């Protein structure tokens, strides 16, 4: 074992953790915001928009993430004559992709809210917009919160795909160490351990949230 040889690369790994986290957080936020919009469209009555939202979802759920990443990173610059920085391309891809999944969870969450809630708000003269924002969303969110954390866990795992387009994340850092030291085992094990810890923390968070949700359901 030559773990001592890894010490000089700690800054590189720390940077990798930073990039991985930055990437995961940005993609989650982008996916969440876009996911809300798509979910609202899905539960609306506007047929053409609904169709579009469902089509969008089926595209992003029906093709491999890596293919989507390559299309955004390599193929779109050809159309727009503009080179996208790798991290931006990755955030865009992952944001668009997770929006598709998140919108489905949210749609389910919104539809799971008792329809009496919407009726009560409407009967009080509350607008559709305010009913959604103040009455339906808070209740829907409570139920989908665990699913949202699970989605960000999935994003964190899949984030290692960005190493393939050269983003210096945890995996790419490990790979770099391997290529400079010609030692494959230690850097990759360290990389795996870092992912394990990060995902463990998120999983713990998901469990806590889930228990909270269930508890307030029982009373």
């Amino acid at each position, binding site marked *: 074992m030559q773990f001592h040889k890894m010490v000089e690369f700690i800054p590189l790994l720390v940077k990798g953790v930073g990039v991985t986290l930055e990437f995961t957080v940005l993609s989650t936020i982008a996916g969440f915001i876009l996911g809300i919009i798509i979910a609202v469209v899905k539960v609306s009555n506007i047929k053409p928009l609904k169709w579009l939202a469902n089509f969008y979802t089926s595209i992003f759920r029906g093709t491999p993430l890596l293919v989507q990443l390559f299309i955004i990173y390599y193929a779109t610059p050809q159309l727009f004559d503009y080179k996208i920085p790798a991290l931006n391309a990755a955030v865009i891809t992952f944001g668009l992709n997770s929006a598709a999944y998140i919108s489905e969870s949210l749609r389910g969450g919104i539809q799971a809210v*008792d329809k*009496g*809630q919407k*009726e*009560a*708000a*409407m*009967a*009080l*003269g*509350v*607008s559709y917009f*305010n009913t959604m924002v*103040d*009455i339906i969303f*808070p*209740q829907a969110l*409570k139920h989908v919160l665990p699913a949202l954390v699970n989605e960000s866990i999935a994003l964190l795992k899949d984030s290692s795909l960005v190493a393939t387009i050269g983003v210096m994340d945890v995996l790419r850092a490990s790979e770099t160490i391997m290529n400079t030291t010609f030692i494959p085992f230690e850097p990759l094990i360290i990389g795996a351990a870092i992912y394990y810890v990060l995902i463990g923390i998120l999983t713990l968070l998901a469990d806590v949230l889930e228990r909270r949700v269930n508890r*307030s359901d029982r*009373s």
Partner: protein
Amino acid sequence: MIEVKNVYKSFGHLEVLKDVSVSIQNGEVIAIIGPSGSGKSTLLRCINLLEVPTKGSVFVDGQDITDKKTNIAEIRKKVGMVFQHFNLFPHMTVLENMTYAPIKTKGADKLSIGKKALELLKTVGLEEKANVYPEKLSGGQKQRVAIARALAMEPETLLFDEPTSALDPEMVKEVLQVIKALAKTGITMALVTHEMGFAREVADRICFLEGGKLIEEATPEEFFSNPKTERAKQFLEKML
């Protein structure tokens, strides 16, 4: 003043209301009764457009609410509703449940509407529950809060859809008492109920619905002592 004129309502192929006309004068209390599935809830829900009639019109203060140009949110501020299953907002306290709509839809001042809500809570006997979440209330308490929430909007008319059907028997009375007291204040009311004694006591007029048709309309005395139609007779025999 509410006027339901020649209203039809279908769900797909199922025709639930067939040419129903009924009017409610200001300050009048009508009770809508009839067998299960006869269209009572649907009729009530047509009055605040939770259901849109397939045909016919509904006038509130002379305004046709089925007209596309009518701002239905404005109408709903004048026509409150109390539901069988209360439909309180679980993520808001009792006070927030009551003040949310007045603040959002009428720009009510937070402080004064809060005060008013507390007074209303007092009239339904629940002032000590102001800052409690609905999950901590009994069914009867929930329904009294739901009534107070509707009243906080200062509606001209209140619609009740079986307000006591989801309650344990021992809680029915406390809710009926609140509604009875309300009926005396001069507010216009339409209530769907299976409580015949209550309908008789509180209503100015009984509307008997059967198979989507309004087949008998009479004062409580007439209706309960001497129903004109055979169907009403049979119904009352079963209920009493």
